[in-house]
């Protein structure tokens, strides 16, 4: 396909307008019952993540236990949506999460740079799926995108999707490197056209990671694609969402842009690690009326 590829026509994005619209969701007042329900929903949407060079089996086991039971004091807090790890940790996560229903997501395709031969990247994907990953978080090759080789980006996503087999594919655009909202919109559409089940903002290794305007542009791409084709695509902002307050704003944005159908962990995820304990802290505050010390919340 390579050279003949015609990139999709996407609407242009006005940066000032998109930023202003995203800001509107920050002025929603989410209190009391909607806050509690929202926080629990967000907890169920968390892709609890550890992506460090220093990851060990012990660290992943701890994370998985946290994922199953985020708060010992509050059994009504749901387990998280998925645990997100490097490929070599997948067998450990699989053992720890057996029977929990929690998905195993793995970052494959030479995360976080994506700078490797497609063949090597595909091998990594196949091995990771074979090891038990339910979801693959791939990175696109931003070099290809920024140099205008959109056909290569499309082909790469399409090939990875095929290699995923039954695993769901999340495509990381690394929006912090794409810079403009026009690029974000185009990359989102290419990824969706090539078969992405989810589109995701960032690896978490590049700043800025997820922002509200970037997520808005991606949600609008998903919305327009759904209205045109009837195909739902999921969304995962990742990196930089550390507080419950900010996560609630994202949730309001999903509600108002995509509607109720996306308000589940099947279609929306937060890529985060420290967010979960802030959610638990806010929920504890709603229960008791007081903020608890962080020492009452277990490390993940």
């Amino acid at each position, binding site marked *: 396909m390579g050279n003949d590829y015609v990139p999709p026509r996407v*609407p*242009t*994005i*006005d940066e*000032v*307008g*998109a930023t*202003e*619209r995203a800001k509107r969701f920050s*002025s*929603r*007042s*989410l*209190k*009391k*019952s*909607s*806050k509690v*329900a*929202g926080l*629990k*929903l967000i907890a*169920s949407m968390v892709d609890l993540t550890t992506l460090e060079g220093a990851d060990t089996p012990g660290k992943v086991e701890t994370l998985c236990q946290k994922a199953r039971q985020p708060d010992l004091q509050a059994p009504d807090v*749901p*387990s*998280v*949506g998925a645990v997100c790890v490097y490929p070599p940790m997948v067998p450990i996560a699989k053992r720890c999460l057996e029977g*929990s*229903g*929690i*998905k195993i997501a793995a970052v494959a395709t030479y995360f976080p740079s994506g700078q490797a031969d497609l063949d090597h990247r595909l091998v990594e994907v196949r091995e990771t799926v074979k090891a038990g990953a*339910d979801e693959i978080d791939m990175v696109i090759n931003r070099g290809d995108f920024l140099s205008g080789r959109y056909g290569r980006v499309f082909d790469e996503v399409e090939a990875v999707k095929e290699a995923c087999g*039954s695993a*769901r594919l999340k495509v990381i655009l690394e929006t912090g490197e794409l810079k403009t909202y026009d690029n974000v919109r185009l990359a989102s559409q290419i990824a969706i056209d090539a078969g992405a089940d989810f589109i995701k903002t960032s690896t978490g290794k590049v700043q800025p990671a997820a922002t509200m305007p970037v997520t808005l542009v991606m949600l*609008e791409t998903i*919305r327009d694609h*759904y*209205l*045109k*084709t*009837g195909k*739902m695509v999921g969304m995962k902002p990742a990196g930089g969402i550390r507080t419950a307050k900010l996560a609630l704003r994202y*949730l*309001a944005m999903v*509600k*108002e*842009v*995509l*509607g*109720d*159908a*996306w*308000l*589940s*962990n*099947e*279609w929306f995820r937060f890529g985060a690690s420290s967010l979960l304990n802030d959610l638990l802290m806010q929920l504890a505050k709603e229960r008791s009326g007081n903020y608890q010390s962080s020492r009452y919340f277990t490390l993940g």
Partner: protein
Amino acid sequence: MAPGPRPLRCTSKDTPVTAKKTTKSKKTTKPPGSDTPHALLYGDLWDYAPAPESTGHTRFEKKYGHFIGGEFVAGKDHFKSINPATEEPIAEFASADAAMVDKAVKAARKAHKVWGKMRGSERAKYLFRIARMIQERSRELAVLESMDGGKPIRESRDVDIPLVAAHFFHYAGWADKLEYAFPGARVSSVGVAGQIIPWNFPLLMAAWKIAPALATGNTVVLKPAETTPLTAMKLAEIIAEAGLPPGVVNIVNGAGKTGAAIVDHPDIDKIAFTGSTDVGKIIQRAIAGTGKRLTLELGGKGANIIFADAAIDQAVEGIINGIFFNQGHVCCAGSRLLVQESVHDEVVAKLKLRIESLIVGDPLDKNTDIGAINSKEQLGRIKALVDAGASEGATMHQSSCALPDRGYFFRPTFFTGVSQSHRIAQEEIFGPVLSVLTFRTPDEAVAKANNTPYGLSAGVWTDKGSRLFEMAGALRAGVIWGNTFNKFDPTSPFGGYKESGFGREGGRQGLLPYLEVR
């Protein structure tokens, strides 16, 4: 796929609903007016709990007279101001007759002897003080503005009151720089200004009138609208507390008769009026030959022009903001949407979707996007024009939202298939009602946009910078927004062409109507 974690149901109902089920159900319960094959459902799976702003901290009297010569004076013939969201009276206000207006003008004339001669830097101190006091009381003022006028607290809190303070700050800065504003000329104040303001931005319009008049050394007699006089009385309190010399600002309450008494008073030097074009014409006739100066800021039927190359999602937000901001009670509202034919269907589909997620209801709820229509009379006028639109053959699209049982509310509405000769394309509706028209070429867009007796505002949406400037030059309107709409700033002059009035408010230009330039 393996069974995943159980999706969470977030409303109080018992049965868990999966995302897939929701997808299916939304196809059967399509919002009215939606004809896309795959509709989105903006439902109550996760709802915003009511978040009303508290009113306990507000203080106001049950009965108000007038504010004359630095004091609150009793009046007669009281009328009630109604909270349009509850239909309950808030407070009673007196009606000033000609004698009362005369008292106010005399107080203003007397005060002008002091105020007109005061150094600009001294006048500035008072204006800065008023601005700061407004900021300090912004929460109370915002709540009262929403109670009395029906506008959502989000707007009175984030737009109205901050702009009120900003206007006083801006003109405080000009007070000692008037000779630099008009280089080579000598400037002096005009005298006593009679100012009559509308109900759509009660306190903001008061600020637009009072701040430049005071900065330039004039004294004023101001009449707020009879449906929204509450915050003007609070402003009077602030002015009294700021220690402004008695009589510099006088505020008289009342309806049309009181306004006429101000217009007809022989010792007033200048009239500034913001309101309907009909009343503006009456005022202009009344003062012809009297030597009184006049500025008018009247109605509008703003064209919001969307070119095919525009950033459509942001343009849709601009359209929403252009017509539904303050329930459409905006003289510069983008009430005529001109869409290039090639993107008409796309824009209309997106508008239909977008009005479904607007939250209509209690103005004091922090999540409300569209509050109450200002008065029963205005609601009646809106309904009459909407009926006219339907009977003239335009297609109506309305949000399916529920409206509160009490109060004056109207659903966000737009008409497609509107042509220039429809009443809803020509007459100002002053409500949350948009008329959608189409055009083929830039020339046609300009011709249609200018084909109106009004000329207050216009918006242009295009990705092409050169076209933006070309259009701005060709449109006969006082305010033209590029890729945005309804943005206000005290540094920017505001005013109309044609039957939208004359004179400018805001910025350096806003000083001119209140100055003699020699």
